[in-house]
């Protein structure tokens, strides 16, 4: 098991490196002028040159990449007109537009995104699995049809429309803003409620469909009939035997969904004005803020490979048949 995790981590690491190199190349080839952005409108050629050399932008692409990679591992020194500023490892550079270390910006944004996504996940998993399970149990009845119909309708509304609708109409909800959990858990929760609701509603529809389909399949299995023939309660048959088997495929989808949401909560964050990773990268994109964009890509890549690994490890606990050694 440990060897397996090590092997997976190694391949995960190579995926992250390849992603970094590829996106670095893409951004480098793009017609952008970061030094100009930093320099501002009243720029002189001398000053522009200074900025370029302090950021290493006058170096060849391979050298720049090397400096960037070295920064991540060892840290990096920036020489700004004589004064040396040390950026300690893992250094992802300074934001061109904000002048702050990228790691600091990401460090501030990541808890926001994680809060939004995990809270939303709690909402949609609870509603989705409950609705799906009940619908599967009463399959074919009006209640089932209503559930399926509702999920179809909700599913066909684009995600950002739901977000806008919640922002416009759910005015009874507390004002949407981010407070760190450790400062005030209550304010943290109330401030994120609208975002959780949006994420919850859209995904609950999808998850109730996954859960329903998975549950119908599971309830039709021979082992459920066996369980029933033992003389245990119907609730135990459905929830211990049926749901237990139905949740494994849902857990797999959830792991990947979680990773995607952690890297792509742009709509939720920008509509509700929550300063998470999505909003940070979106703003950086508008300003050719290369270091911040690279930081966003790095976080995304790491989150994806780590979540993939987590799903696979969790799976071995869920299904004894794939348990390793």
């Amino acid at each position, binding site marked *: 098991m440990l060897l397996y995790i090590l092997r997976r981590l190694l391949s995960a690491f190579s995926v992250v490196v390849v992603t970094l190199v590829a996106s670095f190349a893409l951004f480098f080839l793009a017609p952008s002028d970061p030094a100009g952005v930093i320099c501002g409108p009243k720029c002189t050629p001398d000053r522009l040159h200074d900025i370029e050399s302090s950021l290493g932008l006058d170096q060849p692409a391979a050298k720049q990449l090397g400096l960037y990679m070295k920064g991540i591992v060892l840290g990096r020194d920036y020489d700004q007109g004589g004064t040396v500023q040390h950026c300690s490892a893992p250094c992802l550079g300074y934001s061109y537009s904000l002048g702050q270390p990228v790691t600091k910006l990401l460090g501030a944004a990541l808890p926001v995104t994680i809060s939004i996504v995990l809270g939303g996940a709690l909402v949609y998993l609870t509603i989705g699995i409950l609705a799906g399970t009940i619908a599967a149990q009463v399959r074919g009845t009006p209640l089932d049809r209503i559930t399926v119909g509702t999920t179809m309708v909700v599913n066909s509304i684009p995600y950002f429309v739901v977000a806008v609708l919640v922002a416009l109409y759910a005015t009874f909800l507390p004002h949407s803003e981010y407070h760190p959990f450790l400062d005030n858990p209550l304010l943290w929760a109330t401030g994120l409620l609208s975002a959780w609701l949006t994420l919850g509603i859209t995904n609950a529809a999808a998850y109730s469909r996954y859960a329903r389909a998975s549950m119908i399949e599971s309830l039709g299995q*021979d*082992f459920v009939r066996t*369980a*029933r*023939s*033992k*003389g245990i309660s*119907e609730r135990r048959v459905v929830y211990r035997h049926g749901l237990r088997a139905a949740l494994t495929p849902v857990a797999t989808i959830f792991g990947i969904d979680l990773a995607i949401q952690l890297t792509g909560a742009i709509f939720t964050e920008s509509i509700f004005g929550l300063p998470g990773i999505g909003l940070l990268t979106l703003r950086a994109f508008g300003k050719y803020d290369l270091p911040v964009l690279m930081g966003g890509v790095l976080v995304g890549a790491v989150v994806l490979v780590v979540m993939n690994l987590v799903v696979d490890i969790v799976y071995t606990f869920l299904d004894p*048949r794939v348990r390793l050694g």
Partner: protein
Amino acid sequence: MSEQTVRAPQTVIRTARTRGANEEPYLEVDDLQVQFPTADGMVRAVQGLSYSLPLRRTLAIVGESGSGKSVSSMAVMGLHDTKTARISGSIKVGGTQIVGMSQQELQKFRGVGASMIFQDPQSSLHPYFTIGDQIMESYRAHHNVTKRKAKARAIDMLGRVGIPNPTRRVDNYPHEFSGGMRQRAMIAMALVNDPKLLIADEPTTALDVTVQAQILDLISDLQRDFGSAVVFITHDLGVVAEIADDILVMYAGNAIEHGPVDKILGSPQHPYTWGLLESIPALSGEPQPLHPIPGSPPSLLAVPNGCAFHPRCEYRERVSGDLCRTLKPDLVSRSADPGRKSRCHLKEPDAVFRTDVLPRLP
């Protein structure tokens, strides 16, 4: 696999065959009807089935897919969903009426009054729970005991069904068992609450032949030890000859022949049973073409009037008039032996069997 010595099926001592024959019936099925309303009409899966079975005796229910053998046995366990199945008639197990029982009563009954083992032990055991866990769950559903005691009971049961090293094996998952061991574990689970009736729904179909023989032996042995009645559902007449005391042949939801195994297999009276015997390939002697039953079984949405078998019956011309097409024959004794019944209009079934069918049999 360190299974015990493999006994040849022929050497099983069939002492049960005469035992219990005249005792009080433990299972009594009377005019059982199971119907499923569907969008296409009413599926009449079982149409007035009656039989009885005393303790220590084995009844084999034989028939092809869709003949109603499994559906009728599921009804005995009360396993049909009352929302989708309409059940009428009477099923008494140990004197208790099963038809119309509430879910709570059925829960108490299942596993204790009657137990069931299924065709494919691979899919019938839950893949995510250990063997021991699943047996313990059965036991604790009906006994208020600690986990430790239930586990001791599970280990004891696994030992009794011939699982080597049960103390260690009890913590294994089903996928760590071989097919034969899984079916043994299923049997242990079914018998953990000492039910007096065991329903085995094609328990050896998914197993290879050697393991089949072992499982049949095991069921016979356990039946002797537990003194229970066994309903054995199968389509394998070889298995029937091996394990059963009585046979009930079903066709399109009806019992068409019922009686002691040697009589029914030795000189059957119904053309369908003849067809079944003629469809068994001979394993020795000159290879001969099989004589299959023409046509295919009727849809249970529209069972033919009269005798359900008449469209496929090659002997219907020998019955005077339109009787086969218009009148459903009763399941009654058609010879001097009152214990042997068939559902056919043919006048001299024994004579027809001797002259027309017997020469074709291998």
